[in-house]
């Protein structure tokens, strides 16, 4: 094999701490290498053209690029090789940026290490073989997991693009957090007026199949052909029959059920529909509070239901959906602020969360849009807002900024003034983060037009005094300690990964960060892709995001899915395992260990042998390291290839 080596400067990213010319020079001595050069930006157009020219000029049949991580540009350079007429697998990368130039400044050591990495890559390349993809058909339907605004947008865009969509939502209604909001920044238009029509579209769209009150149980398969088991949780109501008339709710005598939709500001009936615009509008029984289920009494709902929809014996049901792609849009949850003892730890009824406040402000909320203190129902005059509660706070393990709370706090001060003209809002903030279009103007308006009193500093404690709460904080700009006698305190609680996000990530085989937010494929280049082909992200599940950003990402994910499905056939990854039938003794060990059931037993002239089903094999190589005969080898990562790398650095 004639190998060409290209050592990239990446501007000064690599060249700054690696002598790329010296690396190229050293490479010329390595076995198989017939050509080596350094290049300014290997991935740029001239860079790629240079590679193609060299392949032609020097009749190269293998290429090593020493540059950034293969996770970034391996696909780029493989395409370059193809354009030059070479098989894409006759290519190796040496990661001399992320693994060398960026982690140390010792130029001598870096240069030497870079040469070493090239030597390893070249040694492996000598053992590489051309590999060829097979085509397989795609199931052109998509599953969207999570029906918040991001999931709704992704589902509608896909459905409008002609795809069949399965939308899975764990609550009884879609809408997510946005359905709970009163008005939204920066326009202060009514949240349900914006979201409501979209939710109706979901309900009516012929291409969307909605499974509400459902969760993902198990995920099998791979891009183009996922097989997903969905659990439809028992609602004790036959939803095919239920018309959402609400008679049962009206008559149910059990009134103390937890009202999650209203953020526990009120209680609800044991059988309930979370809000009038719910989609789907179906009743569900909370078994913990139902007297029939708990004590075998009552049964009123069953008597009054005109559709005979009540079914106290209903069980969870499992169904299987086959789709070609998945969009995860499971959103966020709120930080549990009660860890802050200094804010009362949940003991003071008039210290509430921002989302509870939204419910209070909402005309469809428990107080019908009137702001009332939970303790005594009085209208508050002095309202204190505390920002960054459970955000930007290392001591509670939440060092990140939640992104949207500065903005919604400003919104809430504006709404407070609208609701109670003689009220005064006070906002304790550390910084105001409002970098969107018309955003900073918005926070300025809260101060300038609505008279919100912004105080730069944190609050150290809240304590009750008579009817009120004393909020003690600092005004760091004034250099003083300040106290406010507040009627109501609203905490801008931060966002955290939604409950169960990590479990879902494991099922989907995608990565998540230290806080449980899903990891994108690349922070800049693949913001909606994941590391698992065919799985995309939308909305706050990837990190805190406001509505415009969530919607944008929903659409972006949908366009990725539509792009994927624009082909009828997908090319399989040829980096799969292959059994050498002569060496295989039919022991079956590989069959047992393969996590994907990709190996089956076959009969070969009366002998048992193993055989890999190419489309199912994911290329993990577990079988390869299990086989006692070395009979099953993962292509592109064979024992010989890996040991060639080992020997390149150790054996001389």
């Amino acid at each position, binding site marked *: 094999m004639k190998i060409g080596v290209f050592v990239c400067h990446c501007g000064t990213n690599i060249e700054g701490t690696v002598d790329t010319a010296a690396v190229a020079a050293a490479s010329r001595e390595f076995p198989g290498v017939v050509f080596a050069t350094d290049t300014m930006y290997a991935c740029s157009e001239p860079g790629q053209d240079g590679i193609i020219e060299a392949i032609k000029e020097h009749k190269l049949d293998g290429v090593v690029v020493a540059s950034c991580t293969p996770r970034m540009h391996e696909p780029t350079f493989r395409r370059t090789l193809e354009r030059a007429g070479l098989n894409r697998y006759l290519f190796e990368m040496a990661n001399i940026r992320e693994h060398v130039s960026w*982690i140390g400044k010792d130029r001598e050591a870096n240069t*030497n290490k870079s040469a070493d990495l090239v030597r*390893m890559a070249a040694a492996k390349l000598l053992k590489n073989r051309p590999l060829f993809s097979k085509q397989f058909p795609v199931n052109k339907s998509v599953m969207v997991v999570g029906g918040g605004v991001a999931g709704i947008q992704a589902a509608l865009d896909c459905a409008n693009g002609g795809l069949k969509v399965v939308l899975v939502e764990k609550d009884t209604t879609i809408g997510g957090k946005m359905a709970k909001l009163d008005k939204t920044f920066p326009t202060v238009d009514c949240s349900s007026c914006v979201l409501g029509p979209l939710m109706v579209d979901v309900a009516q769209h012929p291409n969307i199949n909605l499974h509400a009150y459902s969760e993902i149980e198990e995920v099998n398969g791979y891009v183009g052909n996922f097989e997903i088991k969905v659990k439809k949780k028992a609602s004790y109501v036959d939803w095919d029959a239920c018309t959402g008339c609400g008679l049962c709710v009206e008559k149910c005598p059990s009134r103390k059920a937890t009202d999650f939709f209203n953020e526990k500001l009120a209680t609800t009936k044991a059988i309930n529909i979370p809000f009038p615009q719910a989609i789907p509008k179906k009743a569900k029984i909370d078994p913990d509070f139902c007297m029939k289920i708990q004590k075998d009494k009552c049964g009123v709902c069953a008597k009054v239901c005109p559709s005979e929809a009540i079914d106290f014996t209903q069980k969870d049901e499992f169904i299987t959906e086959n789709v070609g792609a998945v969009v995860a849009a499971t959103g966020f949850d709120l930080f549990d602020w009660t860890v802050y003892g200094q804010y009362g730890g949940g003991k003071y009824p008039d210290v509430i969360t921002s989302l509870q406040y939204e419910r209070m402000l909402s005309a469809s909320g428990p107080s019908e849009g009137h702001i009332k203190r939970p303790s005594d129902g009085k209208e508050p005059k002095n309202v204190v807002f505390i920002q960054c509660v459970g955000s930007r706070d290392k001591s509670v393990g939440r060092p990140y900024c939640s992104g949207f709370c500065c903005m919604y706090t400003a919104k809430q001060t504006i709404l407070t003034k609208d609701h109670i003209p003689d009220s005064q809002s006070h906002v304790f903030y550390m910084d105001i983060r409002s970098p969107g279009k018309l955003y900073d103007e918005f926070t300025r308006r809260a101060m300038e037009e609505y008279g919100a009193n912004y105080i730069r500093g944190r609050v150290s404690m809240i304590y009750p005094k008579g009817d009120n709460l004393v909020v003690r904080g600092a005004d760091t700009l004034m250099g003083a300690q300040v106290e406010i006698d507040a009627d109501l305190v609203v905490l801008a609680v931060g966002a955290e990964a939604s409950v169960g996000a990590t479990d879902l990530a*494991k099922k989907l085989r995608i990565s998540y960060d*230290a806080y449980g937010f899903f990891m994108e494929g690349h922070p800049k280049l693949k913001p909606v892709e994941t590391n698992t082909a065919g799985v995309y992200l939308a909305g706050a599940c990837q990190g805190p995001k406001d509505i415009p950003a969530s919607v944008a990402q929903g659409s972006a994910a949908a366009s990725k899915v539509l792009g994927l499905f624009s082909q009828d056939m997908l090319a399989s990854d040829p980096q799969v395992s292959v059994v050498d039938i002569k060496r295989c003794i039919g022991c079956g060990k590989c069959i047992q260990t393969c996590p994907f059931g990709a190996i089956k037993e076959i009969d070969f002239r009366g002998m048992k042998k193993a055989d890999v089903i190419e489309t199912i094999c994911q290329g993990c190589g*577990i079988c390869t390291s299990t086989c006692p005969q070395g009979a099953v080898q993962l292509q592109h*990562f064979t024992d010989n290839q*890996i040991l060639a790398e080992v020997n390149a650095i*150790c054996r001389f």
Partner: protein
Amino acid sequence: MPILEGKELRIVGFLCNWCSYGGADTAGVGRFKQPTDLRVIKVPCSGRIDPLFIVKTLLAGADGVLVSGCHPRDCHYTEGNFYARRRLEMLKRFLPIMGIDAKRFEYTWVSASEGQRWQEVVTKFTEQIHELGAAPKIVGAEAEETLKLMEAAL
């Protein structure tokens, strides 16, 4: 020269593509400074790592081998790292029998987001190997013998 004589020792890392290789990239993106000794070999999954690779690497002259994969339960291929753990645990117990200091081999879990953790792992392991110094070379028949023993045992 493969390593800078006197400054570096031969340390080989086997990293899974999805988690630890990503974690090492994240460390790079974060410019988390690390010792220069380590040379990384990328494998799809820690389950791809045959314990014999490690033995062969050590016999071939490496002074240390570091294996890193996804955290238990986070494996991209669902359970590869469980196989890895079982095999590597075994290996760790066998190394001393073969006359290899078990401290020359370490396996750990680093996720793609844990750049900082990767920096710590590399730094600590490199220091550990420098404390042990260059490995005594096992050569010729002796090496063959060891390899055979291992092959039988693992």
